């Protein structure tokens, strides 16, 4: 029977009423929106090609989040936990997932491209592919199967779509451009068969995991400053008439990059030129 494996992780609520640093101290768990899409993608393939969807989580996950993922439509769930191990590095997570995959032998492993509401540097899908020596298809919006190969579509820059293919089995990382239409149903969650396992069940030891190299060490965390929006700065190549118009509007007269410099008031033709030049400068319109 075909197995569609989905790796699910947990993020935290960061846009609630609490300042983010307080939210980190008493975290409210929530699903990773990209993992939700990964479950949806697997469920869609199961509906088309049969088989079962198996969710796998590594490390502690709250019951609510786990049930939420199951309720999106999985037949089985595997939780891998290890008492005393709370912070897992990307190689540790990927090593465990690779061991589970060797037993489950899925056609495809789906993961969210990154944990958008966690640390989320996006390393796991690539490490997983490397450990298994399977192809990795990143940032996927849509999938379909053709015999022993998978075809995926991704949204890339400037309104283009890229279609990639790879032999099965493979790792697919799912982007935010993938659809999410299903609701989580508690009844479905309760029908799923769930296994709670430890490292030993997958032939792994804590020592082996701890010895995996990962040089990145976190020193501190602070609240991020809001990122200033990119502002239009009239280019030096602007025609004299356009410069004059911008100047009259307080445009080029303002200091570069200040809030005022973004305002433009001139004739419609001048405004059109300024817009098109800006679109070109940003590579949005060729």
């Amino acid at each position, binding site marked *: 029977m075909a197995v569609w494996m989905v790796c699910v992780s947990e993020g935290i609520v960061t846009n609630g009423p609490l300042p983010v640093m307080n939210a980190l101290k008493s975290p409210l768990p929530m699903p990773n929106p990209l993992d939700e899409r990964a479950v949806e993608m697997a469920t869609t393939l199961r509906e088309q090609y049969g088989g079962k969807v198996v969710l796998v989580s590594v490390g502690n996950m709250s019951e609510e989040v786990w049930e939420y993922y199951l309720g999106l439509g999985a037949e089985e769930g595997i939780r891998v936990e290890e008492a005393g191990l709370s912070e897992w590095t990307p190689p540790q997570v990927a090593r465990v997932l690779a061991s589970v995959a060797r037993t489950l032998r899925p056609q495809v492993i789906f993961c969210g491209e990154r944990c958008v509401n966690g640390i989320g540097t996006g390393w796991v899908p690539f490490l997983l592919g490397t450990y298994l020596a399977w192809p990795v298809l990143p940032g996927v919006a849509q999938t379909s199967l053709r015999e022993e190969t998978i075809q995926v579509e991704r949204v890339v820059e400037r309104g283009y779509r890229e279609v990639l293919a790879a032999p099965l089995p493979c790792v697919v990382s799912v982007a935010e451009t993938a659809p999410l239409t299903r609701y989580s149903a508690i009844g479905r969650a309760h029908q799923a068969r769930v296994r709670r396992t430890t490292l030993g069940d997958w032939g792994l030891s804590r020592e082996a995991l701890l010895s995996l190299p990962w040089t*990145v060490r976190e020193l501190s*965390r602070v609240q991020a400053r809001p990122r200033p929006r990119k502002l239009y700065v009239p280019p030096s190549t602007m025609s004299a008439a356009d410069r004059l118009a911008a100047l009259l509007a307080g445009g080029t007269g303002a200091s570069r990059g200040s809030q005022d410099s973004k305002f433009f008031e001139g004739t419609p033709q001048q405004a059109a030129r300024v*817009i*098109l030049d800006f679109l070109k400068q940003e590579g949005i*319109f060729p």
Partner: protein
Amino acid sequence: MAQNALSAVWVWVAHEKGRILEASREALIVARRVADEAGGAVVMAVIFGQEDEQVLAELATYGADLVYVAPEPGGYAPLSISRRLAWAWDHVVPPPGVLFCPGTRMGREIGLRVGAFRGVGGVSDVVRVRWDDNGIVCDHLAFGGKVQCTVQGVEVVILRPDTYRVRPAPRPLRVSSLPEGEIPAPDVFLVEVRKADPRTVPLEQAEFIVAGGNGVRDFRLIWEFADLVGAAVGGSRVVCDDGRLERSRQIGESGTIVSPRCYIAVGISGAIQHVRGMQNSEIVITINTDRHAPIHDLASLAIIGDAHAVLQALIDEVRKERVAAVPPVGTP
């Protein structure tokens, strides 16, 4: 590993039509600064594709000491480039201590693939890099961009785009060929690249949106301009309520939440319910008769003017450019 003997840093540089992409210029400038802070490490750029004089000149301008040129990558470029980089990492002298990648889609993928192939640690969304006695220290964004984490021991740095100020830091540039070795056969294949039809693309996937609001009486102008520039069309609730635009194109908290690279808001006031649906757009251009409309708070460029006149001028300008770009009949 103590990195306090950093002798070289790598930068994968993306270029197109003889120009280095802005995100790669940022990566070069960051690499130059870290190399200087580390006491004069060598900045080694790597480019794939033809050796282009203009690209080499720009590399020198933005602080590269040495450039490795490699032939156009065959097949699926991010995979073949990262396999070559991962192999060459151990074969260039002096050995680089860190790889910098621009924060573009491809730069990110290359950084992650190289990191995984080599089994080294890295971070993405990096907003600041510096050198101290223990090696490279990076600040990167996490938790949806709300938290800044400071980390050490990073060997692959994927930068956040549009973050660093690019200033020339000219150096004499040496040119060399990237060492080539046996690399595994590809397992991912590029089948096709095609333009999505902006008229049918789901708004949440659109890269470029032209949205009209109550200030636009004639939506034909919105459609005509959007078609000319390849943008998708959206609108505020008011215009969907009265049928100027179909309901499926409503943007906002009770419509679709979008995150395009560019959002042009024409005749839209910027009510909070609308803003919640488009505030993640990277670049916002506003066209509005009212200088005090709240939508301008989000703008990178704010045009004070009449929607219809500016849209008509935009349509005329784009048409004029198109005509000028067509070679006259009879030219070879």
